[in-house]
């Protein structure tokens, strides 16, 4: 597991209060992990803070799964 992947999963577990083994690559934040739209805003903020990236609103709207988040961060991290 890459460092980014591990950190993303840790943030998701902490923010959504879900079991670690449920946070798989294709897990949907809303459908599989019980998040609502505000939880996603909070997750995006946490990713921005943790990885020093800026996630604009239109990009944030496309982040639906754990993998989407990892991919965005890997592509945009300085």
């Amino acid at each position, binding site marked *: 597991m890459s460092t980014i992947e591990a950190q993303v999963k840790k943030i998701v577990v902490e*923010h*959504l*209060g879900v079991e670690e083994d449920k946070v798989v690559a294709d897990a949907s934040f809303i459908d599989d992990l019980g998040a609502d739209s505000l*939880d996603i*805003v909070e997750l995006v903020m946490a990713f921005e803070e943790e990885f020093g990236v800026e996630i604009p609103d239109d990009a944030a709207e496309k982040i639906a799964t754990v993998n989407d988040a990892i991919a965005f961060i890997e592509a945009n991290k300085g």
Partner: protein
Amino acid sequence: MRRVVVTGLGLVTPLGADVETAWANILAGKSGAGKITKFDASAQKCHIACEVKPADHEYGFDAGKRVDHKIQRQVDPFIVFGIDAAGQALEDAGLVDAPEEMRLRMGCSIGSGIGGLPGIESESLVLANKGPGRVSPHFVHGRLINLISGQVSIKYGLMGPNHAVVTACSTGAHSIGDAARMIRDDDADIMLAGGAESTVCPIGIAGFAQAKALNCSFNDRPEQASRPYDKDRDGFVMGEGAGVVVLEEYEHAKARGAKIYAEVVGYGLSGDAYHVTAPHPEGFGAFRSMEMALKKAGMTPADIDYVNAHGTSTMADTIELASVKRLFGDDIANVSMSSTKSAIGHLLGGAGAVETIFCILAIRDQIVPPTLNLDNPDEGTEGVDLVPHVAKKRRVRAALNNSFGFGGTNASVVVKALED
């Protein structure tokens, strides 16, 4: 007229996070006061508070027991305390899985005096230091006072009135009184009613200290700081926690075979119309609040055996006491009056609810809780049993709780042993 009885109780206090533990510690004369642990208070005038203890403490609070991990992260502690106390009360009343038809007529009236001050403080710092884009999306609904009632209604599916009182330190008593009226007026059959507070944070302590309301002279002796009616009293000690009762229409409770603790028979309200923080010097508002509660109950002072005083350990104690003396006349000789704030501090918006629960337990167990640290009673206390230091076994047929708040808002609630 529809009668209102109490069928469930829930408490989160600095002396225990369930009803029986808190009550046993209160009766044992323990103090919940100590040095502030939630933040470094060394720069403050006041270094002490009655904090709710952590889960690993002998009588600590385990937030995870009734509140989801995610919600704990999103909301201020007063909401967590309120949800837990409401859950305890529902469990006690056997109403956790009430059928939908019943839940349509079950409501919430759980308030707070200040609300989410710690979160307002910390998110303001986020705003100042990191900008608006870092403010939590849960900031607003995690701090709002009516969000205990909101969260509880969602968690337990309660679809009746959803209400929240905000009357400073009278909140808990007003919440119970207002909710009892909602049942009497047929808006609901069951109401969860009470109050919660948690403002042990830098701005909360500084704000009350600057208002000269907090005790700042017993920092080295926290357990002795809250000393209602004592000559050396010098301000209140901040407490935190929650108290919630299940109020239920009498026939409804009887029909489902519920355990009935007591009946809510009287409720009085008044305004001092005098000063924002100081009570009327003759206790005019306090007097009229108590007088109205007794009148509504169809009772006289001779029917009251116990008064749980507002008694915050400030100069106002003797003003309240004088108004109680004036109302009771010769009957003052037969009543016991104590301030449990001597043990758990001042729970602000939670106080009236927690203290009404102590009144109910005094009736159940026929014992009255003590006023701690009453070593040298102040002038004006003569002829009144203030139950110094030790709990006292005695007959308790009915009890009156007083709660008074900033803004000059007063509430009194009378509870009575059930009679058919």
